[in-house]
């Protein structure tokens, strides 16, 4: 029996109205708990890409994949736990510091390779990109300085190497402008 862990899935979907709704409705209905979900365009016209993070054990992951494939507009699903993957999340964190503590916060940001992108008299905004762990690490050290606001994009994921491209089925639309006509 495998235990439940956070898993990241990549789903390519046809860029049609209502597709996001279908995907989220599926999760709601089947009782999956979404940790994060991001959607965006891809290099291919008419194809969107979702990155889904959720708790699932091995069986639940397989069924989730199968359930996603049952959605007519889902093109291709990859469970990233099966391959080497780069996963990134972006956070903007507004920290309530004035001039006195500013330097110290900026130093901490350096350690985390985060950037300060806006400075106001009583606050500054930090931008950090990285894995969830890294972001949480920064949040932990910033917390004593009073975090006023935080926003996260949710994870986006990409398999390393060209493994995944080779795996994609032939039905997957080619990255040319021809597909636009279809």
């Amino acid at each position, binding site marked *: 029996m495998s235990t439940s862990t956070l898993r990241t899935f990549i789903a390519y979907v*046809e860029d049609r*109205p*209502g597709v996001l709704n279908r995907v989220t409705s599926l999760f709601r209905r089947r009782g999956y708990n979404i940790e994060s979900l991001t959607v965006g365009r891809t290099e291919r016209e008419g194809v969107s890409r979702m990155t889904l993070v959720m708790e699932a054990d091995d*069986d639940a992951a*397989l069924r989730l994949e199968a359930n996603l*494939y*049952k959605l*007519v507009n889902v093109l291709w699903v990859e469970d990233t736990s099966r391959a080497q993957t780069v996963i990134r999340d972006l956070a903007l964190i507004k920290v309530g510091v004035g001039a006195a503590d500013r330097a110290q916060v900026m130093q901490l940001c350096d350690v985390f390779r985060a950037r300060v992108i806006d400075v106001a008299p009583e606050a500054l905004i930090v931008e950090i990109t990285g894995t969830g762990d890294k972001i949480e690490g920064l949040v932990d050290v910033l917390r004593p300085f009073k975090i006023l606001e935080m926003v996260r994009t949710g994870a986006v994921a990409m398999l390393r190497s060209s493994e995944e491209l080779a795996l994609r089925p032939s039905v*997957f639309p080619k990255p040319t402008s021809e597909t636009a006509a279809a």
Partner: protein
Amino acid sequence: MRTATATTDSANAAPVLKSDGDSDAEPESVMRTGAQIVWEVLREEGVDTIFGYPGGCVMPMYDAMLDYPIRHVLVRHEQGAAHMADGFARASGRTGVCLATSGPGATNLVTGIATAMLDSVPMICITGQVPSHLLGSDAFQETDITGVTLPITKHNYLVTTAEEIAPTLREAFYVARSGRPGPVLVDITKDAQQASCEFVLEPPPVRLPGYRPELKARALDLERAIALIDAAERPVILAGHGIVKSEATELLRELVARTGIPVACTLLGLGGFPATDPLALGMMGMHGEAWVNKAIQEADLLIALGMRFDDRVTGNLKNYAPRAKKIHAELDPSEINKNVKVDVALVGDVKQTLASIVPNVATRKRAPWVAHIEALKGDTAVRDIQTMPHDGRLFAAHVMHDLWRITEGNALVVTDVGQHQMWEAQYYKHDHPRKLITSGGLGTMGFALPAALGARLAMPNEEVWVIVGDGGFQMTACELSTCAQEEAKINIAVINNGYLGMVRQWQEFFYDKRYSATPMKSPDFVKLAEAHGLTGIRVTRREEVAEAVKRARETPGTVVIDFRVEAEDSVYPMVAAGADLHDMIRRPVAVVPEKAAKETL
């Protein structure tokens, strides 16, 4: 893939509209309104009968319909339209089509759509929608029906232009019937129906890059399955709806003939294997026969074919068939390991899977195992209402048995939901597929009468019997009027026990006989039939059953028989919800239930 479609048949009264091409050559495309295109595509898909109800947002389609060779059945409630399309599809294997207007018309379809979804029935629901410029404005009779039906359709579409109608409908038919079939809803705005555009006569292939309905079991898994089958001493085959749907009945028989493995059926699998075959065990699950459930619990191998281990079939999962290895042949990969963890999954069309297995399994007998199961039956026989001393009272089991005997097991029986449904499954022995139609997954009361009318129109040579409770009959009895208008011949056996019987039974067993909201007063069903210009017959004693059945068969038009059966009889055996499969409530031996002080109905 799609089959090639017939081109326009000149005998059909399609509107003769001028096309741009020169007059000799077959035109490649013609100008049509969106409404006409709907009918063009339906004709192209071979649809000759649809079930519907008009209203403001479908008026263009209804107007165009008059010029096309379509039989339109005017229902009395849109739920009936959905169930009729469903029954039509289940009886014939074709795709059923229903049509409703926007708003309330569309929402009235919902129960029928959910019913078809849970039983994987190929169905197209066309709904009208408010004009596209009003979408999202809470316009009169606007309902977001694609939103409402999103989780209960295989797929759905909102169409807002005439140009999209043909490709969308063609895609909808393809999706509905391919892979694991299901209902597909196409919502078409009124302005899309009214606008005109080019209609291309030769349908281009459907292009759905992400949709892969054809899956095949892997060779390695097939080998493993065959090895498990060959080695099993106490195997049981669990035959489900998939056997019927993929038309794998013949192959299943061959498998059984070679391997001597007994077959248990799910409710929807009944008829997938001949019930009168010596190796047919009968139905499994909550109201399955005791020997069937015991055999499953004692088995060393379960071979599940086109079934999904529904909770009504497994009982408590923790103690389900604890000694058995499990092989699961199923088309839908999301069903694998959903309820029951299996040892070998054969994902693919059951018929194809069986075709790969049957020639490769060892020919052998399982005589000791079969004899063991046979011995278990004796205990049940003494509890059977049929073998109990007859005192003139009428039990539902008598009705089912006599009906089976008189129709020689050949009727197409459509059952509703409740006790009568289970008694039918226990006592009417189905030897052929598509001869029992019932709402298994959703358990929809009110399904039977409309579904039976749909089935009858699909299969006009079938003798169609409805078996329905007094409760369920009243849910959709308005469709009697449709039967009368269509001059359809179906026979309706109302199993009238004066109760919402199945719920009453649960109250008897689990709620100290506190009959809350289950006694039900009904109208005089004989008079109700007569009010529709139909024939009504009342039966109160066992001796009258055969005569009434014969009379119904001989009488033209729809006949309603009001069978006044024992009020407080229960379906045995019963596995309480969530109990272990072998933990069955049995009919007390030789104690016929006390004659209830029956209130006048």
